[in-house]
């Protein structure tokens, strides 16, 4: 039969609080009417409206009512429970009411912010309040399950974000596992020569932190490794890490590079583009990523090493290595670690300029990206720090194009945040090193944050020219003799309103930032969400910028959105702090929304058993009934929805509660 609206039992005493949220709700929803309506609902003892229910006075008001009117149920109609449920639950608890006798009605995100017509908004708000009141009447006091938290922390990604977060945690006395996919930590920052706006050398400020990581007793650094699998839940994650075979005994290698010298692949054509120098130089099969690589340990590229590919090679490297560190038989190993919290700092990838053929990257020799310029400028780079063209000559004129792949509907709609400053840095360095005439082609200059605008002024003062307009194409089609043999930048100068052709020797593309190509699979591994473009989604854009929707997993750096170094480091600190307060507390309250079986109703039909993704259900052969292991249950409720006997039940989401909610939203008036 249909479930008849069950009248709340005698002792149900409900208080309802309608929040204005300043004007956020009140400007759209008639809160007074909603309040008066709430007052008429069965079981409601008091209904009030208040400017900011979540504020201290707001909470005190609720607590006072609980005491004076001895309420045993509370409903707050305000924002999303995902935002403030905890706040109000705590308020109830503080007043001696079970936090689970509280119900929230989301009349902001789901009503005032998304509804045009105030009339209809009011109707919607009323129905949601009615539903919450009916639902809360069925609420029962529950004791939250407390589980101990594992004190260690996993940091994924060894760029500046991961490094900074790991060091903070380690200094706080926590054991940290730092996992980096590449053979060395350092990330993109290690590839930079200078850092804006102060122009201090990246290596000088980064490498000390890198060696701190290496030497820190609390940090276990696993480079050339990847997280394979994550199970468990906040406070108790079980992580599988794959340590890829680098064919080097890490503990023996001292990074003397003798083996690299020795490697038989001496001819350039047998070598492959050097990842660290973004292909501007070649490397051998055995190599040290870069001089300050951490760990200072070489690695063998199995896709290039003759021994590993063909099984035959003179093995000059083995000869050369005095410490017998080379081990061709090494295999990947899988390591299991338990951690309480996880910080994801997997960074970004630069936009692939080849996607914009009209800019000629990959077609014209002298079109570079900003990252390549960093390597050219770098003293240990492929040109020993000289900015020279492919033919070795020094450019007399250089054009730097902003917003390459950014703020462009064809590619990435977002502003990559760092490129304006990156392009200014490039302009400054080129000017400084070559004295060339430098043109910056920008759409808008974005130089917010400390010291940035001043740096812009400085670069202007240095005589760099700025042309406002999105470049149409980079071509080698000469219209005048002056253009012969040059790269011609065609652009509309939007400030003087004419189309211009500007011949230069070198073009630098300020490429934007993109999510890592495999961010999709990362979200699955760690059970977090990402935006359609692939940046990881924070729990709340303002109030939860480093948390994710999965408790215990935090975000740091550009994996969450384009960031420059200062911002990245700040966020890494925040993530470390969040992780710290989780593992330091020592335990977590698990939402008691677990499922359980009413034995006398269970027929032991086994329907639920295969449905549980966490293998929490077994059959008690004695009694012939199913039994749910509360510790394993994560509270998805799939078994409850499948039980043909109504014997499986879920705390906080009982059938009754949901039926009341259905009843409430439909027949409230």
């Amino acid at each position, binding site marked *: 039969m249909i479930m008849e609206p069950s009248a709340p039992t005698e002792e149900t005493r409900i208080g309802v609080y309608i929040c204005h949220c300043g004007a956020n709700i009140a400007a759209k929803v008639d809160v007074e009417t909603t309040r008066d309506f709430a007052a008429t609902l069965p079981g409601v003892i008091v209904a009030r409206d208040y400017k900011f229910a979540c504020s201290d006075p707001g909470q005190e008001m609720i607590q006072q009512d609980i005491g004076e009117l001895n309420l045993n149920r509370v409903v707050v109609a305000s924002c999303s429970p995902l935002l403030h449920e905890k706040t109000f639950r705590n308020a109830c608890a503080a007043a001696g009411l079970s936090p689970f006798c509280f119900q929230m009605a989301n009349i902001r995100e789901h009503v005032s912010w998304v509804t045009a017509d105030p009339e209809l908004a009011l109707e919607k708000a009323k129905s949601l309040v009615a539903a919450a009141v009916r639902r809360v009447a069925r609420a029962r006091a529950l004791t939250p399950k407390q589980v101990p938290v594992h004190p260690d922390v996993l940091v994924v990604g060894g760029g500046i974000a991961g490094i900074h977060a790991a060091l903070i945690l380690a200094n706080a006395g926590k054991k940290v596992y730092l996992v980096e996919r590449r053979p060395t930590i350092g990330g993109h920052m290690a590839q930079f020569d200078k850092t804006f706006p102060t122009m201090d050398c990246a290596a000088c400020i980064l490498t000390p932190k890198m060696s701190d990581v290496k030497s820190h007793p609390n940090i276990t650094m696993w480079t050339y490794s990847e997280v394979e699998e994550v199970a468990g839940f906040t406070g108790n994650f079980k992580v599988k890490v794959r340590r890829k075979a680098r064919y080097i005994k890490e503990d023996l290698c001292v990074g003397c590079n003798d083996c690299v010298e020795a490697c038989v692949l001496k001819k350039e054509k047998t070598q492959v583009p050097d990842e660290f120098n973004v292909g501007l130089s070649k490397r051998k099969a055995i190599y040290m990523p870069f001089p300050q690589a951490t760990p200072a340990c070489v690695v063998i590229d199995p896709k290039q090493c003759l021994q590993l590919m063909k099984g035959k090679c003179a093995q000059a490297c083995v000869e050369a290595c005095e410490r017998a560190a080379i081990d061709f038989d090494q295999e990947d190993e899988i390591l299991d670690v338990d951690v309480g919290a996880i910080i994801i700092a997997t960074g970004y990838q630069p936009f692939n300029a080849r996607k914009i*053929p*009209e800019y000629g990257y990959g077609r014209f020799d002298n079109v570079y990206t900003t990252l390549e310029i960093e390597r050219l400028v770098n003293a240990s780079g492929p040109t020993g720090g000289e900015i020279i063209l492919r033919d070795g000559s020094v450019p007399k004129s250089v054009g730097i194009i902003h917003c390459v792949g950014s703020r462009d509907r064809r590619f990435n709609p977002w502003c990559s945040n760092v490129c304006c400053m990156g392009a200014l840095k490039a302009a400054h360095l080129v000017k400084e090193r070559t004295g060339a005439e430098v043109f910056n082609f920008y759409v808008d200059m974005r130089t917010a944050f400390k010291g940035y605008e001043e740096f812009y002024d400085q670069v202007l003062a240095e005589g760099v020219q700025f042309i406002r307009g999105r470049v149409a194409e980079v*071509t080698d*089609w*000469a*219209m005048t003799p002056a253009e012969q043999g040059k790269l011609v930048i065609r652009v509309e100068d939007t400030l003087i309103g004419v189309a211009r052709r500007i011949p230069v020797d070198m073009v630098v593309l300020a490429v934007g930032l993109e999510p890592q190509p495999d961010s999709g699979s990362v979200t699955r591994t760690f059970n977090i969400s990402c935006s359609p473009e692939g940046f990881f989604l924070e729990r709340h854009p303002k109030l939860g910028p480093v948390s994710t929707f999965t408790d215990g997993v935090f975000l740091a750096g550009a994996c969450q959105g384009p960031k420059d170094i200062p911002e990245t480091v700040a966020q890494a600190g925040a993530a470390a702090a969040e992780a710290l307060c989780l593992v330091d507390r020592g335990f977590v309250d698990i939402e008691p929304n677990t499922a359980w079986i009413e034995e006398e109703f269970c027929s032991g039909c086994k329907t639920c058993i295969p449905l549980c993704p966490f293998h929490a259900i077994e059959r008690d052969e004695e009694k012939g009934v199913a039994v749910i292991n509360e510790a394993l249950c994560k509270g998805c409720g799939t078994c409850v929805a499948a039980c043909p006997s109504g014997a499986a039940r879920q705390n906080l989401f009982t059938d009754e509660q949901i039926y009341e909610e259905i009843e409430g939203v439909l027949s409230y008036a």
Partner: protein
Amino acid sequence: MRYLYYPGCSLKGTGRAYEESLLSVFEELRFPVEELGDWNCCGATAYMSVDEMKAFALAARNLALAEQAVQREPVSLIAPCNACYLVLAKVQRSMAQYPHIGRAIADALVEAGLSYHGDVHVRHPLDVMINDIGLDIIAKHISRPLTGLKVACYYGCQVVRPFATFDDQYIPTSMDQLMECVGATPVDWPLKTRCCGSSLTGTIQEAGLRLSYIILKEARDRGADAVATCCPLCQFNLECYQRRMRRAFDDDIDIPVAYFPQFMGKAMGLEDHRLGLQRLFVPLTSAPALV
């Protein structure tokens, strides 16, 4: 797959040589194409700028006819003129993408006792040559390869913009592949899809002339003996105004501009008149390799 051929007005007029050579080449390749019966003007880009909906309806009639002609079995409608190709493709897309346009045009067609279900595949001959016939087949028919001939392949703007359906939008290569296949050497140059001036040549001539000149000059400077085109208007602009260019820019520009099937036909050893070569103002034979 059936192949219908939509000439459009140009190929029956100024672009006759394009039709003659293209059909001869198809014939030589034993590739059957039938001319669409009772076709009408595509409206070109001019009409579209006056009254888009009417222009769409006008062009859509041809699509409906094509569908009808083959009783809705899969069909490719080959439109050699870039303008026709673009217009037909655009109508095709607009009808599919915007329901209101689809409905309006459907209604218009009903008035003409026609209906269109979107089954026609609008194709450019370059696309068909490369993807349906295939270079290996074409290569088999080459009896007199154009060895030593340097060709600048000029695609024009409309065949890859705004829809790059079968080739790269900025650096198309299909015609270059064909020229390579027939033994010629395509020159690498950046103006493959730069505007030829289009109808400007007829309206603001100095502007149109300049644009055409830029193209020819660059082609020559890159060492091309001839320019290959796939659009009757481009061909017309580039070839017929060379004398005026010489005067206007005081430059002895003088370079044959022919349709790509004319080059192919030559390499296949077809007689000149079958390729409409006699219609060229700047004879192909002025290119050394073809003497």
